[in-house]
């Protein structure tokens, strides 16, 4: 059987490589920064029954949802209706999708007139019409306000542009040029995936390849089951909060009981609050994707990623709740903000089973900031979906990383020197925020502060943030990480103030369509990661280094770590003995795992 085993390894590598190549082509040719710098897309291959046979290492939140999206599309369209050269587009969250900006493009792949399967990409189209520029309206109350909704329809019909659909897209999106470029980048990527898959099928034959991919799924499933078997059996509970839904300023609870039984995980979200009027609801696909994401973070990252590795993980999400929203509620924040929180509760639950593999909470928000308007230099409409990096949680043997994309995605930040060529904004600063990492034996990663100066007569802005009041939790006595904020300093003013104060928005974190003007400054603060373990146990030398590099202020070193620093002749030294015995101000919101 060894020959088969080696052949299977080679097949798996080849299929993964095809997906990677699709991704590179997409990234290099797309027009929107969210693609070409942000990697907010996925590339994968499916068999003709809609089972994922391979994917590449792109946006994990979309990867988990894609299996539901494709399943839905095959059911709705009917597998017999796909023709060579067709490409179908689909973005409806209420048809197995994640949220409206995530457009799935699906292209059938044939071998000698027989359908083998599909090349699939999901990409975040940044501007899709709707209530607010950039789609993420923090105060939407129906899905109809969140952008143009597409059921599965043909974008390409036997190789030709299906012009009716293109016309509708180009008319309804505010920045049609970008939509055109991004969709063509996706089409190019699908073409590459299709060509490579056809070559592969010519060499191996269709039925053999189908048999082998089934075997690959079984192997991935078996490996994932072994990974889960290594987690102690039990039921682990956790809960956390979304601080508001943008419509009423009250926290909403997400609750999970994660059962580990042998090689299977069941995540049961019963007890989670009902779905909300505002846009923080998650579809079932989002909740499932977030659950997979959490489970994959706590198991071997090398498990092959095809339909098999998802099978041992089951999700129970009662309809009508925040984690399984029903039409026509808005849900655009479900895939960025609530997705993060679901990852967090599942990881928090499993942390009790495998504390050595767990980490404190990451910043867990996209700090989504949307803006658009007429560019004074070109007279053309521009729009942007901007997000921030957050601090990651500390773990049992290391500090959290500073400023990286929350675990729902792998986006890189857009360089200032790219950003400023596209939008009438001068970036005043982009810094790490001192003291934003949760204190602990291991310190949480730092969040960032970014200040933007508006350089157009007016600009429309919207926000969809969370973690502004309820901070990312620490673990085992570690402090919580810093919270987010978005505030504005009007031209001529001296202070930054929250949008609730200046514009009377209902919440400070979620709003839409606020008009700002030339010379206004907008300050965006992202959250830090939680700390791990008792900060008083952190070696004073490390605290000193953190102070030298201004990751920690001397005040926090004294108050939270009990390390008093003395300034000598151009150097700092520390004196820990007296203060460290004092009970300092301890971090709030720390989660303690059982011994």
């Amino acid at each position: 059987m060894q020959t088969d085993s080696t052949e299977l390894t080679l097949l798996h590598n080849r299929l993964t490589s095809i997906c990677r190549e699709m991704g590179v082509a997409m990234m290099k040719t797309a027009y929107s920064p969210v693609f070409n710098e942000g990697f907010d897309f996925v590339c994968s291959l499916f068999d003709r029954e809609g089972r994922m046979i391979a994917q590449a290492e792109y946006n994990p939140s979309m990867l988990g949802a894609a299996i539901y999206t494709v399943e839905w599309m095959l059911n709705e369209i009917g597998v017999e209706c796909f023709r060579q050269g067709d490409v179908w587009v689909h973005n409806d969250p209420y048809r197995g999708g994640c949220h409206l900006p995530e457009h799935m493009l699906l292209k059938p792949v044939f071998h000698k007139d027989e359908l083998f399967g599909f090349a699939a990409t999901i990409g975040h189209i940044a501007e899709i019409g709707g209530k607010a520029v950039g789609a993420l309206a923090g105060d939407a109350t129906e899905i109809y306000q969140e952008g143009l909704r597409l059921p599965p329809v043909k974008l390409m019909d036997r190789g030709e542009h299906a012009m009716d659909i293109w016309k509708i897209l180009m008319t309804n999106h505010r920045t049609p040029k970008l939509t055109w470029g991004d969709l063509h980048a996706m089409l190019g990527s699908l073409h590459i995936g299709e060509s490579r898959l056809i070559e592969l099928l010519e060499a191996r034959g269709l039925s053999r390849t189908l048999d082998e991919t089934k075997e690959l799924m079984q192997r991935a499933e078996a490996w994932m089951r072994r990974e889960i078997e290594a987690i102690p059996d039990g039921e682990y509970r956790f809960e956390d909060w979304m601080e508001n839904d943008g419509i009423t300023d009250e926290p909403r609870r997400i609750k999970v009981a994660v059962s580990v039984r042998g090689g299977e995980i069941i995540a049961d979200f019963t007890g989670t609050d009902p779905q909300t009027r505002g846009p923080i609801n998650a579809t079932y696909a989002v909740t499932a994707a977030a659950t997979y994401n959490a489970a994959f973070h706590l198991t071997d990252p090398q498990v092959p990623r095809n339909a098999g590795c998802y099978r041992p993980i089951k999700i129970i999400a009662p309809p009508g709740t925040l984690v399984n929203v029903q039409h026509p509620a808005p849900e655009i924040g479900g895939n960025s903000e609530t997705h993060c929180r679901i990852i967090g509760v599942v990881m928090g639950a499993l942390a009790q089973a495998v504390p050595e593999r767990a980490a404190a909470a990451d910043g867990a928000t996209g700090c989504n900031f949307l803006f658009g308007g007429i560019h004074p230099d070109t007279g053309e409409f521009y729009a942007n979906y901007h997000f921030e990096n957050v601090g990651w949680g500390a773990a049992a043997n290391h500090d959290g990383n500073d400023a990286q994309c929350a675990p729902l995605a792998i986006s890189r930040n857009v360089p200032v020197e790219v950003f400023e060529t596209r939008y009438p904004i001068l970036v005043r600063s982009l810094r790490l925020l001192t003291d934003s990492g949760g204190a602990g034996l291991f310190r949480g990663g730092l969040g960032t502060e970014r200040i933007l100066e508006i350089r157009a007569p007016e600009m429309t802005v919207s926000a969809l943030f969370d973690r502004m009041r309820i901070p990312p939790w620490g673990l085992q006595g570690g402090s919580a990480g810093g919270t987010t904020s978005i505030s504005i300093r009007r031209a001529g003013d001296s202070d930054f103030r929250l949008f609730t104060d200046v514009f009377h928005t209902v919440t400070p974190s979620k709003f839409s369509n606020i008009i700002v003007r030339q010379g206004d400054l907008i300050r965006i603060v992202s959250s830090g990661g939680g700390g791990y373990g008792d900060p008083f146990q952190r070696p004073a030398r490390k605290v000193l280094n953190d102070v030298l590099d201004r990751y920690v202020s001397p005040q926090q070193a004294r108050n939270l770590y009990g390390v008093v620093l003395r300034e000598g002749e151009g150097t700092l030294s520390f004196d820990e003995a007296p203060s460290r015995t004092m009970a300092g101000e301890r971090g709030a919101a720390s989660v303690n795992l059982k011994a």
Partner: protein
Amino acid sequence: MASNSRYIVGIDIGGTFTDVIALDVETGHALSAKTPTTPGRFVAGVTNSIKTLGVPLHEVGQIIHGSTTCTNALIERKHAKTGFIGTKGFSDEFDIQRMIRRWGKTSWSAIYDLHQKKPAPFVRRHLRRELDERVAYPGVVVKELDLDEVRCKAKELIEAGASSLAVCLLWSTVNSSHERRVKALIDSEFKNVYVSISCEVAPVVREYERMVTTAVNASLMPVMTDYLATVKEELNSMGFRGSLLLMQSHGGVADPEVLKERPILTLRGGPVAGVVATNNLGKTLGTKRLISCDIGGTSCDTAIILDHAIPLTDETEVDYYPVKIPTADIHCIGAGGGSIAYVDAGGALRVGPESAGASPGPACYGSGTQPTLTDANLVLGRLSADEFCGGQIKLDTDAARSSLEALSRRLGCNVTTAAEGIVRVAVANMAESIRLQTIDRGHDPREFSLVGFGGGGPLHASLLAEASSIPEVIIPLQPGVFSTVGMVVAELGYRSQTGCLQPLASVDPIKLERSFREMEAAGAAMLRTSSTKRGDVRFSRSAAMRYTLQEWEIQVGIDVGRIDHHGLEKIKAAFHAAHRARYAFAPEDKPVEFVTLYVDSSLPTPPLRHEPPVQGDGDPAGSQKGTRAVYIDERMGFVDVSIYDRVRLEADDVINGPCIIEELTSTTFVQKGWQVTVDPMGNLIVRSLESER
């Protein structure tokens, strides 16, 4: 030519062996040797190896080598303590960075690994200072530079112990005046401090990448200066009167005096030599489509050579730090003789990227226990236990076999099948790497020849060609030391670049022509200051271009003579074609823009001639030295095949595979279905019989 510069010597220092070649410029003939590396004692290694060749040091006119000094200093972080001066508000980008999370153990760590550690900021926060100045796109000064502030911040950093300073200000790619003034002030007011400014080191947009590149360069300036001082002094004391040249990452050699300002250009100077050698071979043979394939102990380095040009990229990293310098586009994968084979938790056989290296080395070297690719080849009879590396290393077949036993138990097969599986997986990994550079970029591998060299290249080349649909393999003379040929035939050359962010439609051809001419003049000046050679400087122009609104560029060669409107149209057409070849579509009605302009300036080198083999009659029988049992495939199993001695082969000899050809520095395995012909220069031309049908 004066007698004291009769030889050009090329030296390639590896982990285990130092390879050396001496080119006699009067006759064009070359001598070469392999000697043990003397770690930390460069000059001793050089002089020993030159002595081995019997070449008097005082007759050596040039010594060329790919220095690993800067690379090692960077990886071991033994570079200078470096301070950074940037625009107010942005120096924290050193911490923030902007990569996807892929510094974990595997590629999937990028999305599912909580515990990977972000690389430390290249310059720590307490060694960074900011200036309250600002240039905005497209070059407008928003806030003027304050020289008093520059003086004050530079002083603070120097007092904090920085011996090098890196300066990178926002938008210096479109307006470099602030950066240049900062440098002028520091140069005039502070002695004994090295300064790099980003507009000189790497004038590319995207500030994080540019600031790190600049800081890396600054941190290496003292390293390079010290290194050159030591080496030159020692070589002079040994009687060397010639010049020392260093290989740059893009495949040209340079005078070290020039590289003192840009030591970063030497970072990938080692691996590129094999590509230069391959390109030289292609020019000699008149072959326009080659794949250079260098398989050593730990890696397989492959590169595509089209139309006698070394492929370049500026997307390089060292230790996860972006290094935006022109670099030969070499794909490196962890597949070499020492690559370790294992069964993963899912039951799949994997080979590499971990390597047993030189120590402990493959199990058959006697110290290691983990099975490697070399162990598999030994068990399959493709390597000889007694003739490995000319008999310098005796291989232990029993040790290789026992290392494979545990692996075969996990796979549920016998040792031979396990060994065959290891070779197949390793070859498939290499084939994937070649596929990424050929098919995936629109090139048909059936039009290429694969040049196999390095210790393991000739052993795997025909298997790799078969797996990649490449019909022809070329095994050059002395394949084990082939890279050194690249050192002596490399051209003295520089690549200049300048930012030019502008839509093609609004480009004034006269101004564009002027920009290129200025870069050519600068390139020529650099060559003249550093060259003892004569000859006409050759220039070649290219540009990084993209469709407006894209963020990533494609480099397009510009060969249209003096640029006019017609020339601009041709450039545009070349870009559309390149985009189509690479990404399968080209929206020709969309506007195109320039991002960066490049000029390569070079001086040719004297030709290299190897002693041609004796003309034979086509019958290789005289060079056969025996037979041994070699594993062919599943159907044939082990078969007794003929073993030939390469040095005794004659021109026009023809041998059908399967066969083995042994020589001092390497072993060539020719698979069944392939046929070897010895060409008039002594290269082994291995062709697939199937492709000729």
